């Protein structure tokens, strides 16, 4: 990898050497001997990566499944083993349970205990930056200039902007995916990835359940190359003799074997493949189809338009494997918003070389390639950019100054911070109904003392429990019967979107409001035998109770 990095980031010599001589009358900046020199493209690369780091670190920690994964990490750290059933609920979950991202959960929890909330923000920013860097290398390996590759990494980041604030194991999967793209780029001409790609897949299989997507990339390249060879009249013998096909075949096999190196073995692989087919996921926004009305949808459809233009004008022929990947990942992104993360890497990886080819045909020289001589002034600028990024970034500012941000500024404003505090302070334990995007935080805050009916790991729930959750959310007439059936002791109601349930619970003689603010209501459901009548709110005085005192001149009403 070191060799790869060095060669991919090195400024192109031929252009540096053939750079036109500066006009003699122009003032030459004096070079600083103790600083390395940077080309324009290298400076641009530093700026793109710094921008990715900075923008990501401004995103507050999202409240959805981050806390759920930290819950799992804490459980694993405390029990020194992997859970073999849903550890946060004692009923209502499906029997089959493979916790694919156990390693990222454990690492995330360990990192949190070491570095706190700012540490998590830093991890998010570092992962996003590393993904961008890996994609940049993958684009370089596809023949793009360093400037073009930096632009590609920036484009990929912009495509993922709508989901950038979510720190989750998927980011580890995205990093492995970008490394797979780098490996795939190199496998056409080199065999080095055969040695390190299996290690990536071993890590991937334990960091996140998305490793089959990496297999899909390798398979697409294998099938695409084979199809082209077959189309040229090739035979099985010539197919096997093709070096690229051979390397992709070996790589795919090794990657598949590497994927089995996880605590569940082959079952883990099959479970990852079956994950997206869980019917409950269809009820979750990020697993629903893309719509043009969303920012993600707009960005996606813009890439489709650009792809059409590239198909029309690119002088570089579209390879079969490129078409397979574009169609496959495009359809996947269309079918589920969450798949956009993968499309945002596949699309620039495939499209940018075509864009570069168009530009090169028009300009007659390499696209976005540095021709000016590297200078130390650019190194100083790059250092200043990195320094400004570190000081400005909320993720590193606290580390530098020793003043970490308070919780409310580090986490997303939608996080149920206050109701979470109320649950912890009141010592609430037992089964709780709560909005699924809040429930993870409640489990985290109460150290798993509350057992949510549903939390963000919806794929672990059985269909009946999920249906009951939806009915309770809608505040159906038989909500109390459902609550009793599910053994719920408490309800945490989001007042704005669950008005029906809020009103019904407030009226019920079996319910006792423990806490209420403008966002949420915490209700205790009393067991039937202990239920008491609500405190009398009968009017204390009627006209008949008013004394007929002598001073009354006119009736009060």
């Amino acid at each position: 990898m070191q060799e790869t990095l060095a060669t991919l980031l090195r400024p192109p010599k031929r252009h540096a050497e053939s750079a036109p001589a500066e006009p003699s009358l122009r003032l030459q900046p004096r070079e600083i001997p103790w600083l390395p020199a940077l080309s324009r493209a290298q400076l641009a690369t530093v700026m793109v990566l710094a921008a990715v780091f900075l923008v990501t670190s401004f995103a507050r920690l999202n409240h959805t499944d981050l806390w759920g994964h930290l819950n799992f990490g804490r459980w694993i750290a405390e029990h020194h083993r992997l859970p073999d059933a849903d550890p946060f609920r004692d009923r209502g979950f499906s029997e089959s349970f493979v916790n694919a991202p156990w390693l990222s959960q454990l690492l995330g929890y360990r990192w949190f205990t070491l570095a706190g909330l700012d540490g998590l923000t830093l991890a998010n920013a570092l992962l996003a930056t590393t993904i961008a860097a890996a994609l940049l290398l993958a684009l370089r390996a596809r023949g793009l200039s360093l400037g073009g590759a930096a632009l590609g990494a920036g484009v990929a980041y912009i495509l993922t902007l709508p989901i950038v604030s979510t720190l989750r194991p998927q980011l580890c999967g995205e990093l492995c995916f970008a490394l797979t793209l780098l490996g795939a780029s190199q496998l056409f001409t080199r065999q080095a990835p055969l040695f390190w790609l299996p290690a990536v897949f071993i890590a991937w299989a334990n960091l996140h359940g998305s490793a089959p997507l990496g297999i899909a990339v390798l398979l697409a390249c294998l099938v695409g190359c084979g199809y082209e060879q077959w189309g040229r009249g090739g035979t099985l013998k010539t197919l096997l003799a093709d070096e690229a096909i051979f390397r992709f075949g070996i790589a795919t096999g090794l990657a598949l074997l590497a994927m089995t190196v996880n605590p569940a073995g082959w079952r883990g692989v099959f479970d990852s493949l079956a994950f997206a087919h869980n019917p409950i996921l269809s009820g979750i926004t990020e697993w629903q189809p893309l719509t043009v009305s969303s920012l993600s949808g707009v960005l996606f459809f813009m890439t489709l338009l650009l792809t059409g233009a590239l198909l029309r004008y690119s002088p570089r022929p579209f390879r079969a494997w490129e078409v397979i990947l574009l169609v496959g990942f495009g359809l996947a992104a269309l079918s589920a918003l969450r798949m956009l993360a993968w499309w945002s890497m596949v699309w620039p990886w495939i499209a940018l070389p075509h864009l570069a080819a168009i530009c090169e045909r028009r300009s007659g020289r390499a696209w976005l390639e540095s021709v000016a001589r590297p200078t130390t002034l650019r190194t100083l600028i790059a250092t200043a950019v990195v320094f400004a990024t570190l000081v400005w970034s909320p993720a590193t500012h606290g580390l530098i100054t020793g003043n970490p941000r308070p919780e409310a500024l580090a986490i997303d404003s939608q996080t149920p911070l206050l109701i979470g505090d109320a649950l912890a302070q009141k010592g609430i334990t037992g089964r709780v109904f709560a909005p699924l995007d809040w429930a993870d935080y409640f489990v985290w805050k109460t150290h798993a003392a509350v057992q949510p009916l549903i939390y963000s790991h919806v794929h672990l729930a059985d269909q009946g429990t999920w249906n009951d959750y939806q009915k309770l959310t809608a505040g159906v007439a038989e909500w109390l019967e459902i609550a009793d059936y599910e053994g719920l002791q408490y309800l945490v109601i989001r007042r704005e979107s669950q008005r029906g349930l809020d009103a019904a619970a407030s009226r019920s003689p079996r319910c006792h409001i423990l806490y209420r603010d403008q966002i949420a209501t915490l209700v205790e459901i009393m067991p039937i035998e202990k239920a008491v009548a609500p405190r009398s709110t009968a009017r204390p005085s009627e006209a008949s109770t008013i004394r007929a005192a002598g001073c009354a001149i006119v009736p009060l009403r």
Partner: protein
Amino acid sequence: MRLASLRGLTPLFLLAIGCGAYRLLAEAPPPKIVLLRGEPWCVLPRYDLPPIATDAQLRAVLERMKPPAGKANTNVLVHALRLWGPTVDFGDPAIPSGPEMRAYFLQDAAFQRWAGADAPPLFALDPAGARVRPALLNNPFEQSGSVHVDDLLATLGEIGTPLAQPLDTRDGRTSVENLLFGALHRFHLEQQEYEWTAISYARFVAPQTSWTNEHGQRITVEELVDDLIQHPVEEGVCGGTHRLEALVVLLRVDDQAHFLAPRTRRKITVHLGRVSAYLVRAQAPQGYWTRGWIRGAPPRAGEKLDLGDEILLTGHHLEWLALAPPEVQPPRETIIRAGQWLVRAMLEVDHDTLTKWYGPFSHAARALCLWRSVNPADVWSGAAAAGQ
């Protein structure tokens, strides 16, 4: 190793030096709460309108509003302390005097004497500041808990208790300042009840325009005012009237401390003026208001009415209006009609109802005194002396 081979590390050295220098030069974070005064701001009544309640009517009303004897109820005592102040003496050992009521909230021994030795402490100390025990529904000690968030602190401010005043809790001695710190640290803008925190802020914290709570959220006076104005009135305590009272207290303290931005002050004035206009339209011909005042129309024929609610609403509205500036006042006729109805209702209501609804009725008595710019203790002691 040649020196030139280390050139690549130079930017890293520069970064390390830069970050080190930045750390040395970076300022420490500002304190979360800054208090500039030790005494609460005082808000005095500003009108004397005899037609609202004659001296004789006032004396008669106050005679009925002595705190009830027997085992103390914290909510009743906090209302009694607000009405009577810390100096009154009823000359009856069964009825707590002003100093005893004040001591109830400042000394645990006095609290136990009146609320019972088995009552859990009213205050608890925690790192964020003193915390008040809330009145939990169906709890055996509900009566001795506090019903509203930060109402005890606001009342201590209203009767002029300085921040340095010792607060003797069962956990040890602290001060009113620590109680204020606890309230401000725990405050958040999603809170359901924030009226008394706003009043406490105005009394003790102004002219500071912001503070930081325990979650690190910066609370500004502008946000506080927006919360008081924008949230649905019907969700506020006592028909939303304490929010109006909080706005008036903010305005009146601003007259002395000048901490509100002109735009914020104008926002409050416009809002209160609008409420006044609603009150004029919503007043019943007899003079009272109901919970439907927010509709800006008098009670409909056949509408189910509740005398307790009417006294509660009418008393609370007259109370904030008594402190409000002239530019937001409704016509005098509206005030007088409401005052006279209140006097009659207070005199005619039976004793049991009055005792049960002591809190809301104490607001009505206090409103009448404020509109006459008199101290209830002085009026009552004058009447008592004349009776002797």
